[in-house]
């Protein structure tokens, strides 16, 4: 029975949704050596609603722009291509799963709120020590993407998983018990299918086990910490009931030899950032 269900999963997962065209285009354009703001703006022109959401996020106080940006071209110039690429990725993948999800086992808007909380937290934590947390933000948005996939492709099993876990069993243990695979692994399969960068694949695959990261350990550690910070500040609602232990090495990557106020300051920044972007994204809309 177990074996059959494993085969079944892999078969069903071979049928994963394809990557949104606009993201494919965006990846293609931005990987070209002479890519300019105009090139990216041209891609964005094909999806007005994506662009509108992206501009709302870019104009939220979290990004601290002194003047409002109102075109994709301006957004690229002011925020940089990398930020725009990662925002476009985040916003468009949210769109894919919003329209497809049956949300049998959880509220999809709550789920995205948790992912947004993780994204904002992971970026803030990462930037305590490193520059350019844009891909960490996108990694936070996508870290639980495997849950969305399971919800769509294995609604029956995922419902069983949700009935099983609780005080004595973690969500990941329940996933292993029922389907022998975790949402992190399922997310990794999607990341491969969609040809995400290796760093992104690791952020999704190892967000519960940051020590396994090889290519992007600091990014993965930031996602791992951001996930628990989002839960502890109740930013959105993860379907995990408890804050899980943060890996000590991951924690020490960012919070050793820091002032006592660094942690509370970071949490304040995260709370503000989350509130601002949540408003801009209008997740229930």
């Amino acid at each position, binding site marked *: 029975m177990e074996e059959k269900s494993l085969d079944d999963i892999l078969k069903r997962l071979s049928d994963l949704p394809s990557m949104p065209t606009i993201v494919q285009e965006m990846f293609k354009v931005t990987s070209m050596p002479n890519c300019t703001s105009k090139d990216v703006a041209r891609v964005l022109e094909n999806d007005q609603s994506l662009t509108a959401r992206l501009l709302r996020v870019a104009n939220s106080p979290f990004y601290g722009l002194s003047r409002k940006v109102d075109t994709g071209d301006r957004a690229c110039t002011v925020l940089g291509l990398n930020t725009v690429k990662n925002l476009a990725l985040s916003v468009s993948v949210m769109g894919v799963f919003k329209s497809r999800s049956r949300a049998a086992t959880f509220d999809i808007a709550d789920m995205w709120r948790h992912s947004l909380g993780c994204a904002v937290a992971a970026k803030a934590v990462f930037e305590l020590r490193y520059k350019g947390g844009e891909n960490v933000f996108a990694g936070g948005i996508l870290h639980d993407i495997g849950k969305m996939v399971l919800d769509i492709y294995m609604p029956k099993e995922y419902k069983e998983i949700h009935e099983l876990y609780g005080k004595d069993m973690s969500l990941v243990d329940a996933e292993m018990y029922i389907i022998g695979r975790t949402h992190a692994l399922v997310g990794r399969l999607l990341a491969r299918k969609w040809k995400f960068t290796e760093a992104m694949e690791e952020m999704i695959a190892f967000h519960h086990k940051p020590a396994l990261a090889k290519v992007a350990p600091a990014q993965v550690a930031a996602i791992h910490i951001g996930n628990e910070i989002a839960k*502890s500040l109740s930013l959105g609602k993860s379907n995990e009931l408890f*804050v*899980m*232990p943060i890996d000590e090495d991951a924690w020490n990557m960012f919070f050793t030899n820091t002032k006592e106020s660094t942690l509370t300051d970071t949490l*304040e920044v995260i709370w*503000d950032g989350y509130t601002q972007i949540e408003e801009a994204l209008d997740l229930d809309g």
Partner: protein
Amino acid sequence: MKKIALNEVMVGMKTARDVNNPRGMVLVKKGATLTEGVIRQLERYDITTVLIEDIEDEKGTEIDPKGLEKRKSEQMEQLKPIFAKVATLPWMKQLMDAVATVRAGRL
């Protein structure tokens, strides 16, 4: 309503008007409770004064440091169940404490 220099505002005071940067962008909304973090952010934006609600309106409780301590310990109680599995780890305790501090200033 009172105009107070930013270096004299206290955690727990409430804004009587939106605080805008010179370009008109809202940094803090009217009625927000000032926290350490918010005050530090305003410093970063070079804000020098803030319009604060009269303390009488707040019956003096909001800026009472003892009130803040009490709210923090209430928050600690509320956080206990979700931190149940990790409370023995020193760095998780540190996180729980910081979360309680931030929530006490805001909720």
